[in-house]
């Protein structure tokens, strides 16, 4: 497809975890404004392969904004300049012909770079393993409405559950704090009856794991929520604070 944009790209290249990285400059012509940002990267990578160079490694999967893979820090913002979208939902029409675009990986001690723009987000999985679940024995599905849940609680839990664990909150936060992520994961269960049994221990364990991963503390700047592709609210962080402080001072786990 013939396009009409020419771009200068400045992309972080790093061959592995232990090697120092640096920016590389690329020129790309014929970019259609209708391409997604990731499609533009596909075109760039094909150009690199044709030139006999190593293509740029970047995470991507669903390309429809629900998997949370496409971590790119674009011109100083996670997922680029638009609000409430992931990189795959960002289109080249958001940029101008002749623009220089700087692309970096997420920067956090807890998210080490694996290669180029790919970072290791296993820290999030370890936080989930620490308590982000309900222990329920499987069996027959219960009758509908056997567990009454207020509509408001269901909606609020659903809004928190919209978190796709992309890590934009950590990337945007000046402290590389994971509070918005953890608060969403704690909230989605704290608001529902199924989450009550492990409510206290969940908050305690998930925060302890978050701290041991090396994420920073929360300064309440609101950068996380402003950059979140799923627009997770700061109300969840206040809830996590209540859950954690309440659990610490009331639970019998010494």
């Amino acid at each position: 497809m013939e396009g009409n944009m020419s771009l200068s790209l400045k992309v972080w290249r790093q061959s592995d975890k232990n090697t120092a990285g640096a920016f590389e400059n690329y020129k790309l012509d014929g970019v259609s404004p209708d391409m997604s940002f990731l499609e533009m990267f596909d075109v760039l990578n094909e150009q690199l392969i044709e030139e006999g160079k190593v293509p740029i490694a970047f995470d991507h999967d669903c390309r429809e904004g629900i998997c949370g893979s496409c971590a790119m820090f674009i011109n100083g913002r996670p997922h680029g300049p638009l609000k409430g979208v992931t990189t795959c939902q960002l289109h080249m029409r958001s940029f101008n012909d002749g623009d220089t675009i700087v692309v970096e990986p997420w920067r956090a001690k807890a998210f080490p770079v694996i290669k180029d723009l790919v970072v290791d987000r296993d820290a999030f999985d370890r936080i989930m393993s620490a308590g982000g679940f309900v222990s329920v024995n499987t069996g027959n599905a219960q009758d509908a409405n056997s567990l009454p849940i207020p509509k408001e609680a269901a909606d609020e839990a659903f809004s928190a559950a919209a978190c796709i664990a992309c890590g934009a909150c950590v990337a945007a936060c000046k402290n590389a704090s994971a509070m918005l992520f953890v608060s969403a994961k704690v909230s989605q269960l704290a608001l529902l009856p199924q989450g009550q049994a492990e409510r206290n221990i969940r908050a305690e364990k998930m925060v302890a794991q978050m701290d041991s991963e090396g994420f920073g503390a929360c300064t309440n700047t609101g950068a996380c929520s402003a950059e979140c592709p799923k627009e997770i609210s700061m109300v969840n962080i206040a809830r996590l604070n209540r859950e954690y402080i309440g659990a610490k001072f009331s639970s019998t786990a010494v």
Partner: protein
Amino acid sequence: MSWFSQTLTSSIGKKLLMALTGLFLISFLVIHASINAMIFYNDGGETFTHWGHFMGTNPIVRTLEIGLIAGFLLHIADGLILWKNNTEARPVNYAVNNPSANSTWYSRSMGLLGTLLLIFLVIHTAHFWIPNRSNQFSTGEELNLYQMMLDIFQNPWVVLIYIAGCISLFWHLLHGFKSAFQTLGWNHVKYNGFINFIGTAFSIVVPLLFALMPISIYLGWVD
């Protein structure tokens, strides 16, 4: 580690300590601003000295003062520890960063504003509190704080330092007041408007009142 120290040394616990000591220091600012505003009676310091004497000699107030010093030290030490931890959480910085797109500069600069306030606090206590308390310890007599204010605020550089201190306090409070409630988990649709209004009003009124004191004395409005 006991559950209690474990709680207070967790990331949320450190923030809880910041919020509680911050709100305690805010309550101190109310008392400090109210009593010092007695100089605006412009009665040669009579009302101010009356209340200054009460604050400097009343045994309950003097006991609470120990708590105030502890509050300051905790807030400062905890703030420095958080600043260190938070800096370490991002060892490699972004080459291009545009944080003004998602947050206010003063919410991101609480450590810097706090450091400026700490420098101001050292200068300010060296002017009044330390000489006065040392004199009380050695001779049992209070110093004439009103006369000291009139003398010290004749120097335009001192007045400028005090104004800079008040400006730092304004920005620090503008984020800190509301942030403390969020840290305590008090984010509720029924109270957010009230907290925001009181937070902003407090951040403007108190530093303005403080700044007017050296300015009024320097310009001779109060003598």
